[in-house]
């Protein structure tokens, strides 16, 4: 990192404040859509922190994967399950929230004391490397991290197939009786979209 130290400190302060504030907004806002957009803010601030830590490849991957894929996926999910109603109140909910807050603050205090009390073995090697981080990460992927790399590919394939199977719609069994439809080939899925308004369809059927 070639920036001056003052600029680094100021950038870190701004990025840290943005990260913590947006994360609190994600957790505490009532409107879930605001939380989703603030989550994108958290991801982008963390990408900036990665750049401060000389991790340019991971910063780019963070922006691409988190902001470009996961955040968009979360927004799609929010819009798919968008149902505007207030949750039924649960008795003594504030007790749970207060106790959880106390536990979280305790965990933070514990982690802070550990971080500040441990003598970290800070490396004195020069951080200015001859190669870019992308080259080094690529060499790691195809030499000593080859098996985890391939396992990650298999994991992504399994997640894709599993997500498709979980999210697909119901089977409709009464297909054989409809003879007017074109014959079923092996590539068409035996399903049809579910009626979006079951109450309205029931009303029309009862009126008929």
């Amino acid at each position, binding site marked *: 990192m070639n920036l001056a130290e003052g600029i680094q400190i100021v950038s870190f302060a701004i990025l840290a404040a943005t990260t913590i504030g947006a994360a609190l907004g994600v957790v505490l806002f009532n409107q879930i859509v605001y939380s989703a957009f603030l989550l994108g803010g958290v991801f982008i601030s963390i990408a900036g922190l990665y750049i401060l830590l000389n991790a340019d490849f*991971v910063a780019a991957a963070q922006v691409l994967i988190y902001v470009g*894929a996961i955040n968009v996926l979360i927004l799609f999910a929010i819009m798919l399950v968008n149902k505007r109603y207030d949750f039924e109140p649960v008795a003594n909910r504030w007790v749970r929230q207060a106790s959880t807050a106390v536990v979280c*603050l305790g965990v933070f205090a514990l982690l802070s004391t550990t971080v500040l009390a441990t003598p970290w073995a800070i490396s004195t090697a020069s951080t200015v490397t001859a190669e870019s981080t992308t080259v080094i990460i690529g060499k790691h992927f195809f030499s000593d991290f080859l098996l985890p790399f391939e396992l990650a590919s298999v994991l992504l394939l399994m*997640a894709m197939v599993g997500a498709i199977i*979980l999210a697909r719609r119901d089977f409709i069994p009464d297909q054989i009786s409809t003879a007017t439809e074109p014959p079923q080939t092996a590539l068409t899925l035996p399903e049809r979209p579910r009626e979006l308004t079951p109450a309205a369809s029931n009303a029309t059927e009862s009126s008929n």
Partner: protein
Amino acid sequence: MELQLQYFLLLAAALFCIGIYGLITSRNAVRVLMSIELLLNAVNLNLIGFSNFLDPVAIKGQVFAVFVLTVAAAEAAVGLAIILAIYRNRETIDMEQFNLLKW
């Protein structure tokens, strides 16, 4: 005065605790998934901080961070699919009413 490893570790610890708070207290199932993303980001920040300050030559922490990124993507896809499936059955995404696994 320059950037220390402790700053990043403290920031990641704060982010992790906020994520745990949201994970436990939120009632919207999508917000639970967002809190899990916060947790994974805190872990990634720790890994990259360690790789920059303790192992700047062979940056293995960044390799681990890329793996965590991959697993986070897979987790988001499967988790949102599960939420969609439960929403089709239950017509709600309230965590208090998800008693499907009750014995």
